[in-house]
């Protein structure tokens, strides 16, 4: 699918779609509509989740899902406010997301609900609770 077809496919579920080139597609959605979109993507033949990125944007954390739609790449952005850092797991639909969601939990402190393996297995053994290295407020201890 090129960008146009993917855009048509997901129009019903996302807020805004920005087509950069025929292979790059940036879209924004919210938690609920995103959940409904996933089965539609799967039915359309999108099976590869490239990765999940978390970005600290000050008062919100953006979670970006990168779906490989062959040849287009869909970058789906979901903004979570820092008061409510929760998102549903997508591992039931895309099992390859297990590691990326864990990465998200550890690096940015986003809580992934329904994750099959949500244990905190973070950084060194003695890493302090509640410190997330990719958060803006993370202070590096002096060496």
């Amino acid at each position: 699918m090129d960008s146009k077809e993917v855009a048509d496919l997901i129009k019903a579920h996302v807020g805004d779609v920005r087509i950069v080139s025929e292979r790059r597609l940036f879209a924004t959605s919210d938690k609920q509509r995103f959940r409904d979109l996933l089965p539609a993507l799967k039915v359309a033949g999108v099976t590869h989740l490239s990765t999940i990125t978390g970005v600290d944007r000050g008062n919100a954390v953006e979670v970006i899902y990168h779906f490989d739609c062959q040849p287009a790449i869909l970058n789906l952005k979901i903004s979570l406010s820092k008061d409510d850092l929760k998102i549903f797991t997508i591992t039931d639909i895309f099992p390859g997301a297990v590691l990326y969601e864990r990465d998200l939990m550890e690096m940015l402190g986003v809580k992934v609900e329904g994750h099959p393996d949500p244990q905190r297995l973070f950084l060194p053994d003695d890493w302090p609770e509640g410190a997330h290295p990719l958060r803006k407020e993370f202070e590096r201890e002096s060496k």
Partner: protein
Amino acid sequence: MGLVSFFRRKSPWLLHFDTGGCNGCSIEVVATIIPRHDIERFGMQVRGSPRHADILVVTGPITKQAKDRIIRIYEQMPEPKMVVAVGSCPASGCVFYDCYNVVGPLDKFIPVNAYVPGCPPKPEAIIFALVKALEKV
């Protein structure tokens, strides 16, 4: 030169441990055993166990997770032992000097006998360092 140190110089065995490097130096350390460089000419061998090793070859900056392990491995090696730090990373942290999980340099934790600057150094440079370090035995 005593008899003991003569034999000690004739067949030092190496133990390689990567404490968080990028693999560049590790591969060059392995490259010293292949036909092109063949450090068995000097009686050296890369071994898998610290109990058999005389020289500990360390590559990479020291990460928090690897710090305890490298100290432990050093303690397990029999006396006399030498430590050779390969690459710029164990010497100072190289490009990782300000990363949050890097606690290096190596000489903060264990004594280092010789350094091989380079990023990564050529296998010849590693051989040069090993030969130079052995002269000190």
